[in-house]
């Protein structure tokens, strides 16, 4: 990497990041996120009733379902908006590589999400005040939660590369994120395994291994496994490669 590569990526990142704060959508999403993550935790999760105040069973449990909707809402503008405005053409005729733009934009969306996640820290404060929880699951839970959000964002980035419509991008991304979540949902996997002949169990387990859920739950249990982190990183890399292919097809 040359200095100019980093400078280009930073220029893209800066514009993208600041543009989030010009849009009311971001504030709406952050408020919904905070309300949803707190609401689910306290009301549905009966957070305060549970004996051990275990965050992993209450707080992080709901995160995938929140991200399935909110990450596409944050990311749907990534490339769709460039296509719609025609600024994509401008960007691709400037002296930077598509990768610099893809990474710069993705990192901007990722940082926005990191801020959202940091705002939920009040939950952690509450837990610490209620008892003295084990910090291990909290840390791995946050890492798992953030990686889940990034996975959904990367999927959204890929979808946005192919369409100029934010609505289409949103719907497609939500559908993909639901799919990637459900194929690993323990209840669903078990019932599928029961109905299919035993010889296919390996295949089902393999498919479920590819899902976000499988890797997410391991980590929220407080087991920090490099394998699961690598899984999410590969999901992001693959999704960004698909983004790159989508952008290239627009210029074919």
């Amino acid at each position, binding site marked *: 990497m040359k200095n100019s590569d980093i*400078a280009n990526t930073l220029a893209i990142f800066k514009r993208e990041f600041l*543009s989030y704060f010009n849009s009311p959508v971001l504030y709406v999403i952050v408020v919904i996120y905070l309300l949803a993550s707190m609401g689910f935790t306290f009301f549905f999760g009966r957070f305060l009733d549970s004996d051990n105040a275990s965050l992993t069973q209450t707080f992080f449990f709901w995160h995938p379902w929140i991200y399935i909707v909110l990450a596409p809402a944050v990311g749907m503008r990534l490339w769709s908006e460039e296509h719609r405005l025609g600024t994509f053409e*401008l960007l691709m005729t400037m002296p930077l590589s598509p990768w610099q733009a893809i990474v710069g934009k993705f990192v901007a969306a990722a940082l926005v999400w990191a801020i959202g996640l940091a705002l939920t820290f009040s939950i952690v404060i509450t837990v610490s005040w209620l008892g003295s929880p084990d910090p291990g699951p909290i840390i791995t839970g946050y890492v798992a939660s953030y990686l889940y959000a990034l996975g959904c964002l990367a999927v959204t980035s890929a979808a946005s590369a192919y369409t100029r419509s934010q609505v289409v991008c949103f719907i497609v991304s939500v559908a993909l994120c639901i799919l990637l979540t459900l194929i690993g949902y323990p209840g669903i996997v078990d019932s599928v395994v029961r109905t299919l002949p035993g010889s296919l169990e390996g295949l089902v387990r393999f498919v479920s291994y590819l899902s976000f859920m499988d890797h997410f739950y391991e980590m929220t249990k407080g087991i920090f496994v490099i394998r699961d982190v690598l899984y999410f990183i590969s999901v992001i890399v693959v999704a960004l490669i698909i983004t790159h292919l989508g952008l290239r097809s627009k210029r074919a």
Partner: protein
Amino acid sequence: MIQVQNLRKEFGAKVAVDNVSFTVEKGEVLGFLGPNGAGKSTSMRMVTGYFRPTSGSIKIGGIDMLESPEQAKKSIGYLPENAPLYSDMTVASFLGFCAEVRGITGAAKAKAVDRVLDLCFLHRVRNQSVDTLSKGYRHRTCFAQSIIHDPDVLILDEPTDGLDPNQKHEVRQLIKNMGKSKAIIFSTHILEEVDAACSRAMIIDRGKVVADGTPESLRKLVPGCASLDEVFRSITRSDLEK
């Protein structure tokens, strides 16, 4: 500065640009003429590195666009058709962003932005959101972006489209003046602009170059035609006839 050879672009079965070759040197302004759908924008998008040609070669200042696109793009300024802008930015922040992507930062950036705000008469709206600009100002903002790095090569796709007569005149003057030190290509379907700003013109029809020369020589191309307008109509076919 610009050397284009046997450029061809197919979209599926459709040939949008067919075997187009030309060179433009510093100090030349080449006008791209042709009816709608002739392939003017597609050609420019290949020269600027946006579209990849099906075949052919493009060199900008001796640098191959297909082999080292990032290097070749450095010396090009480009105004795409319809003047796209980021609608949530102000004029000055948009221009600042374009400068940064081109490696102009710090004090040099402020200077570059000021220079193009001056050249394009944008000072009055510098802190206005792009969203709220009138069409003429939007167009000039995108034009300003194309010259922020004072490029050797300028490619302008219908730079006077949608402007009022005064603005059209200003932009033509600007092109003509900059043409003294740069290699410029601009497309238009307004024939009077050829006389007003070009040192050379190419007429393109259905992807092919059908005439290439000075405005003078084009006028004499078809016997019996007195004006460029008549020449244009006799050698290109309108969309309706396809």
